[in-house]
């Protein structure tokens, strides 16, 4: 792999009606966070567009945008700040569909700890995941006047939430759709019942003003100059929109699809996740996947100014070139609308999901 990748783009429908193989690199294990893609595969939305989509699972050290830049995948799902960092390192990628309009990152603390906002974290043991998932937290603390390197003790969380449950750390990073649910699936030894939302307080970075854009579909910048790839991107995005719309309307069906895909977390957990994920997408006033200027700018600003514990920021300069484009998502939205898909989800109403022990 070299910086100037020029691996051949599969010609769509090259051999009369045959499906074009497309690989999508996800950023983590199969779970409802990626339900839209899973559903689009299962429901044949991609197939209808002439695409044979293969979903590549992520891992701890898998950097989806790198996989994409190397030409091992045709598209990748990645958080915006991390992808921008890779761009700065020479990965030629472009955000072509900002699927999640909102951030789902929380900092969760025990209710009785009195932590309700970023400033309260001063002097506390603050959990985070590292791996580049920590910048909203750092930005929030910086905004509140704290120095993340000095004013708090940073602890890398494990892949479970035991550290918070055992009160080893005062506040833990949690995605609204995943780790937060794990807390609510754990039994309180004192009462013998599950913990409830009342036991915890949540710092939501959206309200703290330090949220950054998360899951987006990234495409290979260079290949985007190829009309065939352009077409394929629109088709891919169209089917993706269909998939997410399907999951918005058929949460339980999508949960089953995810579980069938081999997710190790249980059914109620995935339903919760489906519900919470939908909340991050819908309603989408400008249409699903359209990059919002203001949110983008906030993401870039934070990426350039927030320093982590070693004094590094995500970006050293403003992104150059085509970091994002709404061209293809807008075409896809038009196509989806024409097919009768609700691309705004104005009427979306989240449901109340009851979690069971262990998310079973």
């Amino acid at each position, binding site marked *: 792999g070299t910086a100037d990748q020029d691996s051949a783009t599969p010609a769509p429908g090259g051999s009369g009606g045959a499906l074009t193989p497309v690989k999508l690199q996800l950023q983590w294990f199969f779970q409802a966070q990626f339900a839209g893609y899973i559903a689009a595969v299962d429901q044949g939305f991609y197939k209808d567009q002439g695409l044979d989509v293969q979903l590549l699972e992520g891992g701890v050290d898998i950097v989806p*945008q790198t996989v994409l830049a*190397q030409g091992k995948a045709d598209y990748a799902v990645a958080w915006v700040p991390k992808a921008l960092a*890779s761009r700065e390192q*020479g990965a030629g990628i472009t955000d072509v569909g900002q699927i999640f309009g909102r951030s789902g990152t929380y900092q969760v603390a025990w209710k009785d700890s009195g932590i309700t906002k970023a400033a309260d974290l001063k002097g506390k043991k603050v959990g985070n995941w590292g791996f*580049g998932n920590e910048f909203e937290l750092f930005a929030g603390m910086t905004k509140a006047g704290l120095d993340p390197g000095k004013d708090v003790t940073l*602890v890398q969380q494990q*892949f*479970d939430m035991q*550290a918070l449950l*055992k009160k080893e750390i005062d506040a833990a990073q949690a995605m609204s759709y995943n780790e937060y649910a794990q807390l609510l699936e754990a039994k309180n030894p004192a009462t013998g019942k599950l913990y409830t939302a009342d036991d915890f307080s949540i710092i939501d970075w959206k309200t703290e003003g330090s949220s950054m854009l998360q899951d987006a579909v990234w495409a290979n910048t260079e290949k985007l100059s190829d009309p065939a790839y352009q077409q394929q991107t629109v088709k891919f995005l169209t089917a993706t929109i269909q998939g997410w719309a399907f999951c918005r309307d058929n949460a339980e069906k999508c949960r089953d699809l995810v579980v069938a895909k081999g997710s190790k977390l249980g059914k109620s957990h995935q339903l919760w996740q489906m519900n919470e994920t939908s909340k991050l997408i819908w309603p989408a006033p400008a249409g699903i996947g359209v990059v919002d200027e203001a949110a983008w700018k906030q993401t870039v600003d934070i990426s350039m100014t927030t320093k982590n514990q070693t004094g590094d920021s995500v970006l050293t300069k403003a992104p150059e070139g085509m970091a994002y484009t709404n061209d293809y998502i807008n075409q896809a939205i038009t196509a989806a609308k024409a097919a009768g898909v609700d691309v705004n989800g104005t009427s979306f109403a989240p449901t109340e999901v009851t979690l069971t022990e262990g998310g079973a």
Partner: protein
Amino acid sequence: MKWMKAVLPPVVFGVVAIALWELIVTAGRIAPFILPAPSAIWEQFLEQRQNIWEAALASGANALIGLVGGTVVGVLAAMVSSRFRPLADVSIPFAAVLNALPIIALAPILNNMFESTSSIPRRLVAGIIVFFPVFINTLRGLREVDPIHQELMHTYAASGWTFAVKVRLPGSLPHVFTGLRQASSLAVIAAVVAEYFGGLQNGLGSRITSAAAFTAYPRAWAFVVGACLLGLVFYLTTLLLERLAMPWRTRLIA
């Protein structure tokens, strides 16, 4: 002259390898996220030297404590086992079997058993990993007593304790150091890799992963270089200790 002969080939080899690496990266225009150039790594190394130093201190402390702890426990356990033949018979195969297990995978469990906000779990991981080579080698050394020495001490009417102190212990020193040599760089690796599974973010391991997650590979590799240096320091210190402790053996690498 002799010194030159020992040092020159590896230095030449290293310089050539680095030059080649640099050449491939620049000439092949390989993106830094695939393979960073040595010059870029060096630049980052200089820029981050303060961070590297601090992280190396944190990881090094964990490794050192693990190493010392594991060694002390290993040597003591070996001494106890060597006193009771059946115990040694049982413990050698058992330790050999345990040594074949992926101990590093214990890190998440230890994090839960102790607490992820302390350095104890990773020190324990390092300690356990150090324990096995030290224990097995020391025990072997303690059991391998020259029969002539045994008879000699018998003719001197020496007590069991005298025998242990004057013969068994010094006789097993080479074995102890054999174990220690293996353990020293293992301890560093264990301490660094254990950071991977969560816990305090003050060491080289978490720095490497967080830099890698940002595709900042030159920075990640700068920390890797730090880790290598740390491992090397441990290894060389052990060699030095070995020489000091056993002046009668002059060879540096057995």
